[in-house]
C-alpha cells in the first residue's frame, strides 16, 4: 500500500479518537440543554475546575492558599497528605454536586423564563467567574494529573499493523481508554435517561416544564441533578484532557472545540454529539494533513467552525436536531 494512504489511515484513526474526546465535552452541553434549555458555555471551565479540584485534593493542597498568604502573610500551601485517587474522585464529585446546587440556587432560579440568549450570556459570566475562582482556589500553575491511566504508544496495535501493512500505527493508550470510557458513559447515560425514574423525569422536564411541574416533578431537583451530571461528565473530560496535556488554563478552551460539534450534531441529540464529534475529529485531522501544509498549518483552530457554519446554512438544526418551527 502506498505510504500516503497509510498515513491517511493513521490520521483518520487518531481523528476518531480525538473526536471521541470532543464528543465527551459536547455531551455535557447536550445534557443541560435538553433538560433546562440552557446552553452552558461554562462546560469547559467546569472541566477545568473539576480537574483542578481533583489534583488539589489528591495533592492535599490548601484551598485559597494564595489568598490566605496574601492577606495574613502566612506561608501555607499543603496539608502534607496524599489522598488516594478513588477517594479524591468521590470528593471531587461531591464538590461538583455542590457547585451544581449553588449555581442553580444563585443564578438560574432567578432567570427562569428568560430568553435563551440571556441564559447563554449568563453562563459566559459564570465561566469567567469559575475561571477566576478555580485559579484563586488552587493556583494557576500547570499541574500534572496522574490517576493511573495508561499512556504512550500502544505496542499491540503497533505490532499488529506493522505485521499487516509493514508500517506501525501510532495510537496513544490514553486515547483508547478515553474512547472506551466515553462509550461506557454514553451507554449508561442513555440507559439512565430511558429507564430510571429520575431519567424519565428529566426527559419530561425537557419536553415541557409546566406539564412536568403539574404531574409533581420537582424542577429544582431535576436541574440540580442535570447540572451534577454535567459536572460529572466535565470531571471525566477533565481527567482525560488533564492527563493528556496537564491541568492548566487551556483546558477550559475545549469548550470552544465542543461548540462546532454541537452545531453539527444538533443541540438536542446525544447521538448527534457523538457523530458530530467523530466527523469533526476526523475532518479537522484530515484537513490539516492534506491541505494544512499548503496554507501554513494550524488549521485545526478554525476548520471545525467553518465546517459547522457551512453545514448550518443548509441544515439549520444540525444533523439530528429537532426541526425548528417558528410561529409568530
Amino acid at each position, binding site marked *: 500500500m502506498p505510504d500516503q494512504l497509510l498515513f491517511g489511515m493513521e490520521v483518520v484513526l487518531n481523528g476518531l479518537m480525538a473526536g471521541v474526546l470532543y464528543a465527551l465535552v459536547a455531551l455535557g452541553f447536550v445534557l443541560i440543554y435538553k433538560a433546562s434549555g440552557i*446552553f452552558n458555555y461554562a462546560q469547559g471551565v467546569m472541566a477545568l475546575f473539576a480537574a483542578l479540584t481533583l489534583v488539589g485534593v489528591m495533592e492535599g493542597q490548601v484551598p485559597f492558599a*494564595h*489568598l490566605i498568604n*496574601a492577606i495574613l502573610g502566612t506561608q501555607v500551601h499543603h496539608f502534607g497528605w496524599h489522598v488516594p485517587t478513588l477517594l479524591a474522585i468521590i470528593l471531587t464529585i461531591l464538590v461538583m454536586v455542590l457547585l451544581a446546587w449553588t449555581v442553580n440556587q444563585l*443564578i438560574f432560579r*432567578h*432567570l427562569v423564563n*428568560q430568553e*435563551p*440568549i*440571556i441564559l*447563554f*450570556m*449568563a453562563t*459566559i*459570566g*459564570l*465561566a*469567567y*467567574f*469559575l*475561571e*477566576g*475562582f478555580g*485559579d*484563586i482556589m488552587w493556583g*494557576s500553575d500547570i499541574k500534572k494529573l496522574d490517576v493511573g491511566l495508561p499512556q504512550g504508544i500502544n505496542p499491540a496495535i503497533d505490532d499488529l499493523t506493522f505485521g499487516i501493512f509493514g508500517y506501525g500505527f501510532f495510537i496513544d493508550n490514553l486515547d483508547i481508554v478515553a474512547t472506551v470510557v466515553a462509550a461506557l458513559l454514553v451507554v449508561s447515560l442513555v440507559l439512565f435517561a430511558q429507564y430510571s425514574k429520575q431519567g424519565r423525569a428529566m426527559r419530561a422536564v425537557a419536553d415541557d416544564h409546566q406539564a412536568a411541574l403539574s404531574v409533581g416533578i420537582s424542577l429544582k431537583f431535576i436541574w440540580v441533578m442535570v447540572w451534577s451530571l454535567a459536572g460529572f461528565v466535565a470531571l471525566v473530560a477533565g481527567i482525560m484532557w488533564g492527563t493528556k496535556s496537564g491541568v492548566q488554563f487551556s483546558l477550559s478552551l475545549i469548550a*470552544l472545540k465542543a*461548540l*462546532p460539534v*454541537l*452545531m453539527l450534531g444538533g*443541540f438536542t441529540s446525544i447521538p448527534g454529539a457523538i457523530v458530530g464529534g467523530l466527523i469533526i475529529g476526523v475532518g479537522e485531522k484530515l484537513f490539516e494533513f492534506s491541505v494544512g501544509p499548503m*496554507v*501554513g*498549518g*494550524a*488549521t485545526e*483552530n*478554525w476548520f471545525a*467552525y*467553518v465546517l*459547522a*457554519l457551512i453545514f*448550518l*446554512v443548509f441544515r*439549520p438544526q444540525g444533523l439530528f436536531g429537532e426541526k425548528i418551527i*417558528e*410561529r*409568530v
Partner: protein
Amino acid sequence: MFYREAGDFKTSYTDDSQTFPIRFDRYRYYAVLIVAFAVIPFVINDYWVNAVLLPFLIYSIAAIGLNILVGYCGQVSLGTGGFMAVGAYAVYKLMTAFPEISIFIHVILAGGITAGVGVLFGLPSLRIKGFYLAVATLAAQFFLVWLFNRVPWFYNYSASGQISAPERTILGVPITGAQTAPWAAYLFCLVFVVACAIIARNLTRGMAGRKWMAIRDMDIAAEIIGVNPLKAKLSAFAVSSFFVGISGALFFAVYLGAVEVGEVFGINKSFLVLFMVIIGGLGSIFGSFAGAAFLVLLPVLLKNTLVGGLGWPTDLAAHLEFMIVGALIVIFLIAEPHGLAQLWRVAKEKLRLWPFPH
C-alpha cells in the same frame, strides 16, 4: 428643580425631534464636549492617556458597534475580536501601501473594509438564529485571527509576524509611532468617538434603527409588516463592523503601535466588548460608553488598590478581576438586564420630579 421639560416650549418639528429634548440635557452634552475637547487635552499626562482615556475611547467605539448588532438588531456576535483585527490589518496595509494619504482617511477606509467582511460573515444570519448564530460568528473570530497569523502578505513579510505602525502625521503633528504626544492621540480618537456616537445615535433613531429593532423583537413578524430581513440584518452587520473596524484600526495604530494578532484580538477581546455592552446596557448608545468606562476602569482600580495599596501579587488581582467581572455579568443579567443605562434612566426620571415626590 432645573431638570424638566416644563416651560421648554417647542415651536418646530426640528426642535421637537432633537436628540436631547430637555434643555439641561442639551447643555450638559455641550459641556461634556467642551471639557473633552478644550480642557482635557491640556491637563492629561502619559499615564492617564494610555491607561484610561485611549482604551476607554476606543472600546467605546467597539461597544457602540457591537451594541448596534446585539442590542438593536438582536444578532449576538462573538466575532468582535476578529473584526477588530480586520480593521487593524486593513489600516496597516493602507498605511504602508499609500503613505502619502492622510491616516484619517485610512482609518475610515479600514472601517469600510471591515464592513465588507462583516457582511460576508453576516450572511449566515439569514438562516441561523440565536446562539447558533453566536457560535457561528466564532468561525469569523478563529478564521480571521488564523488568516492574519499565517498569511505573510498581511503583515508585509516581517520577520516577527507582528505589525507595527509607522509614523504618520496630521498637520505636522505625529498621530502614530513613538513620537506621538498624549494629547494628539487623545484628540484623534476623540474625533472618531464623537462622530461615531452621533452617527450611531441618529441611525438608531431613524428608519434603519426601527427596522433593526423590529427584527430584534421578532423577525418573522417584522418580515410580515414589510421589513426586509436581508437588508436589515446585513445593514446592521455592515454598520456594526464599520464601527468595530474603526476601533480596531485605532487600537492598533494609535493605542498599541505594535500588535501580535492572536494575543491582542483573541476571543477574550470579543467577550470583553460583549461584556461592555451587557453591563452598559443593551440597546443604548450611552450604555456603550458607560460599559466601556466601567470595564476599563475596573482593572485599573483593582490593580491600584490590591497590588499598589495592599501589596498583593498581580496574578491574584487578575484572578479576582475575572471573578468580579463574571459575577457582575450574572448580577446585571438577573437584576438589571438593561444595564447601567437603565440605572441612569431611572435616575433621570427621579430627577425630573425632584424635589417633589409626585
